[in-house]
């Protein structure tokens, strides 16, 4: 399969490493030979219709800061041109999330679909801003559209719900979907340290962003709840429909009082018909959602299976490449590969 990578940050690099590492496995197990014919970042593009040398591309991007420095690469804003002009089967949009406009990912995805290319994205922005539009555009264009990595990182939340649990009516989805806030709450609990201190620690470790607003105010979790409501519950929901409370007022005393009652505090997103909500919740110790550190966890409430919970790593380039690669294999199979 010929692949275009738009965005060559942590996720683009992680996926490229997975392509290198798993080339033999993909060929033998799935009959799949991924050939990356173009890689684009904000400074330029590298294109080779015979397939880029991924090890060389990674080295160049690390050393020179852009894929444009790759042999024959070009500088400039080239994403749309590459998406439209380079012959390819699948376009990965791995650009940074913008939850207000969805750009630049939104335009990338639309153009790729209109050009008849299948699309895989990890980008929450376009999904939060225009889920229905993209979903129907994909159908109209007759292409496959996958976005497993947008929620839960490595945890196969969407695939589990839409495929393996397809025989169930899904009544409610509850999830710990933000690794940063879960890390903060876990550290406050284990160390009894104040919020400001653990936040600074998390920033030093690179777990929290310099501007942690989207995480600690619950907005990132709300984006994921919006995507799950649209993709799993079939609700036409927007971010503004989610009632959001962050964790900035949660003091370490609150965590202590909770623990004395056998509970932990987690930032939980809830989606069911008529209710989309994000906020700190009390959860009994030992409950499937009472996960610690940067882990994510999701529980589905179902009519037949009753309850199913999964846990795993919600971020990280290697972990997320599990979902990005899974989507590619899924498209390959759907197309009869």
């Amino acid at each position, binding site marked *: 399969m010929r692949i275009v990578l738009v965005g060559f940050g942590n996720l683009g690099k992680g996926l490229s490493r997975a392509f290198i590492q798993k080339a033999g496995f993909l060929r033998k197990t799935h009959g799949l030979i991924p050939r990356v014919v173009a890689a684009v970042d904000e400074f330029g593009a590298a294109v080779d219709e015979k397939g880029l040398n991924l090890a060389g591309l990674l080295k160049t991007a690390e050393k020179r800061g852009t894929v444009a420095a790759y042999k024959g690469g070009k500088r400039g804003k080239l994403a749309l041109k590459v998406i439209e002009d380079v012959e390819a089967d699948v376009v990965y949009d791995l650009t940074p999330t913008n939850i207000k406009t969805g750009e630049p990912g939104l335009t990338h995805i639309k153009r790729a679909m209109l050009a008849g290319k299948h699309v895989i994205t990890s980008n929450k922005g376009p999904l939060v801003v225009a889920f229905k539009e993209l979903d129907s555009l994909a159908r109209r264009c007759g292409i496959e559209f996958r976005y497993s990595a947008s929620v839960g990182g490595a945890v196969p939340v969407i695939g589990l719900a839409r495929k393996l649990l397809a025989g169930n009516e899904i009544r409610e989805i509850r999830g710990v979907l933000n690794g940063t806030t879960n890390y903060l709450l876990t550290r406050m609990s284990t160390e009894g340290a104040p919020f400001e201190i653990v936040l600074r620690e998390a920033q030093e470790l690179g777990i929290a962003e310099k501007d942690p607003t989207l995480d600690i105010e619950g907005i990132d979790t709300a984006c994921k709840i919006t995507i799950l409501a649209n993709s799993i519950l079939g609700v036409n929901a927007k971010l503004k429909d989610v009632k959001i409370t962050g964790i900035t007022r949660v003091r370490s005393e609150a965590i202590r*009082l909770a623990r004395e009652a056998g509970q932990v505090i987690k930032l939980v997103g809830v989606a069911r018909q008529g209710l989309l909500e994000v906020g700190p919740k009390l959860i009994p110790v030992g409950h499937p959602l009472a996960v610690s550190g940067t882990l994510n966890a999701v529980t589905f409430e179902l009519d037949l299976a009753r309850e199913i919970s999964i846990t795993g790593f919600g971020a990280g380039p290697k972990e997320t490449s599990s979902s990005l690669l899974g989507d590619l294999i899924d498209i390959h199979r759907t197309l009869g590969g």
Partner: protein
Amino acid sequence: MLVRIVMELEDVPGQLLKAFEPISRFGGNIQSIMHQRERKTPLGRVPVMLVFEIGDRARLNRILGALRARGVRVTQLGEREGAVRATALLIGHIIHTDLRDTIDRLNVLKGVMVSDLSLAMGDPGKESTARITIAADNEKRANLAISNLQRIADRKKLLMITSLEAR
């Protein structure tokens, strides 16, 4: 939850022990026992009333199953007054927004009582945290109490953290 059961035991030594074992095995905490010897049944069995606390319905069912398997006859089963408990945390200026008023507004509800309160004071000028446990006669009343408390919290600009299962 607090559960009250009445069971009928044969009037021979060792029977009470036989009934207690499954309750403690599945994590029940016995709070009171009443032998009703004067109400002996025509078959010569003695009714015994037990009140115990147990985590959830599933454990209670296991206890009942184990009692049945041991030939203990349970004749009455019910949740006791204040049997349903709900816990919530409040964060904010709890004292200055009149904690007593907050509690009073819950206690006026029928079948609802604030049964426990723990308070962690913040530094001067900073927010405090309270853990409130509400005991209610049944789940419906507990939910009503929680939603009333939520309204009070909203009005007093307190952050309320409820249990995941609270509706």
